[in-house]
């Protein structure tokens, strides 16, 4: 059987490929989850799962944001910067103000959207390389966050914390939020906009010829990614009851790792937010397992990087094999 070089050539063929990737990613997640449960049987409890997801959620948000940008064949180094600006605004301005928390929270949310749109304008409007544009805005946003909140601290609004640490119909909020991100992505994926994201990522020129407004789609994707990364910062401020204006940098490269482990192609057009969420949860499970068995922190670092390396090496070898069999 001869296979088309680009999945976009035969759309009917694409779902099977994605399902394969989903299966492996899900398998890794399940294996790690089972290991963790075997080590700590107490984990089989909604509250415990909620606590675990709570620590994983900042990365889940950032990884979801990163995925959106990678799907249109970009990369966003500024997700860490957007994260901390929204985080700092939440801790410093929203909490500091008396009264209208909800309104100011909207400002924090809008800040993420605005920063993402700025990235989008650089990439789609001025045709900057995504890497360079977001390298520049990463440091700009990080600086702005430090101006708003120079050191760790501040007071995020209590209502935010009570929502984040609370429950919805007896289910911990963290679980609901992860499910909601999944759900929103599935919904977006099903819309015309979702199809356009994949089309632009798979082959920009073809998408343009098919009448897709490529630049508008890119602008929207970067803005949406900014919104999501900002939500991560807001969540983190609420969950830890403090602002941390330097916390973002740690998430930048890890979010790329999560995207790759999940199976979204850095070349765009293939993969999805759901995959990256599973990978982000896998990374959280790794560090949970390592601390459960009282190993040193290096084991966690080595295992995460090792997982990334194994996943890409295996994929590279499979790809080589299939290239050879095709030839």
């Amino acid at each position, binding site marked *: 059987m001869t296979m088309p070089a680009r999945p976009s050539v035969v759309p009917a063929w694409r779902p099977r490929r994605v399902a394969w990737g989903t299966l492996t990613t899900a398998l890794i997640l399940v294996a790690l989850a089972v290991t963790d449960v075997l080590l700590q049987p107490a984990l089989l409890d909604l509250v415990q799962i909620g606590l675990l997801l709570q620590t994983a959620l900042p990365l889940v948000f950032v990884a979801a944001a990163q995925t959106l940008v990678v799907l249109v064949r970009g990369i966003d180094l500024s997700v860490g910067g957007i994260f901390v600006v929204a985080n700092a605004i939440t801790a410093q301005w929203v909490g500091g103000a008396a009264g209208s928390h909800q309104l100011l929270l909207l400002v924090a949310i809008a800040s993420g959207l605005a920063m993402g749109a700025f990235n989008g304008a650089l990439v789609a409007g*001025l045709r900057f390389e995504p890497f360079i544009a977001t*390298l520049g805005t990463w440091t700009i946003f990080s600086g702005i966050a430090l*101006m708003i909140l120079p050191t760790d601290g501040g007071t995020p609004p209590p209502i935010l914390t009570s929502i984040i640490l609370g429950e919805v119909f007896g289910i911990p909020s963290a679980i609901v939020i992860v499910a909601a991100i999944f759900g929103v992505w599935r919904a977006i994926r099903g819309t015309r906009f979702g199809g356009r994201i994949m089309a632009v990522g798979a082959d920009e020129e073809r998408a343009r010829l098919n009448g897709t407004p490529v630049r508008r789609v890119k602008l929207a994707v970067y803005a949406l990614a900014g919104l999501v990364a900002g939500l991560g910062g807001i969540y983190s401020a609420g969950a830890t009851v403090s602002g941390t204006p330097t916390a973002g940098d740690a998430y930048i490269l890890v979010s790329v*790792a999560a995207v*790759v482990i999940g199976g979204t192609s850095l070349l765009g057009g293939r993969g999805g937010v759901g995959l990256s969420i599973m990978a982000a949860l896998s990374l959280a499970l790794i560090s949970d397992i390592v601390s459960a068995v009282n190993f040193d*922190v*290096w084991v966690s670092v080595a295992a995460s*990087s*090792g997982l990334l390396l194994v996943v*890409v090496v295996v994929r590279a070898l499979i790809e080589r094999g299939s290239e050879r069999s095709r030839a």
Partner: protein
Amino acid sequence: MSARLSAVLREHHATLSAYALCAVLFVVGVLHSSGFGSQSSIRQMLVFASFVGFAALGQTLVILAGGLDLSVPWLMAFGGVQLSHWASDGIPGGLAIVLVVAAGALIGAVNGLGVAKLRISPIVMTLAVGGLVQAYLLAVGLLKSEGNQVPQAAVDLASNRIGPVPVVALVWLVVAVATGFLLARTVVGRNIRAVGASDVVAHLSGVNVGRTRFITYVISGGASAFAGVVLSGYVGTTYLDIGAPYLFTSIAAVIVGGASILGGRGSYWGTVAGALTLTVLSAMLPLFHLSDAGLKVVYGVVILVGVWLSTSGGSALAALRARGDGAPQRSQEVRSHAG
């Protein structure tokens, strides 16, 4: 205007504008406070710039060949920590430095293997290897909580001077001349550029693409480890996060120096200008009562404006030339579509 001069100007437009930017910033600094141009201030800036220069050396070659090295900060940490470990084991300082640089090159070779042989994306490969190096440093108990002592040889290298000139700046000059020669006059240098411009075309014209890429990562590993050695020598102690700021600055120096992140276009002399510019900028911050936060914003703006000027400024110049001699300069246009 002589045709030769204008040809030079066009070819080195990006590099020259990086030096011009650096000079303008320096003059602004001197006008603002005369101490900025004093011998000791210039010496200090040269030393700091050399750290960026060493960290960005491999990064320049890797980016020129169309790659990227995210493991630079961890290799710098490795350079300092491993050096202090080996030196405390009784290996003479000078020899330990050589060994550490060789070990760094070896780690770079792992990056190179993944990218060149397995065709793993450079971002992913160097990210994973960086993580493993970090794990190694955390694992083997080399890190001391109060910071690791560095051998005298590294301290001397970073702080001695010959007459008024710091030794490390001289070393940087020699390295820059050698790298400039490598890129401009040797087959390896030509291949690096060719691979970065288009690996398909390079392959078709007989360049060993894999080996060329591999070499750039090996050099990057060694150079980053050396950057870690001199930085630790300057600080007098070393720790895990010592290289952290250099992920950003090593890439930023290359970009401010006028290289294309897509590969093929750029030079180490451009990176030298980039390293000097970033250092002068950060030295100016106390003069203008800028905080660290302000510097970060300024850095970002400089990168964005610099890149925007060097690309659209370059095409404006090309358009001007095209009007002059009737030969349209298409390369810019073709590049942007190919990307």
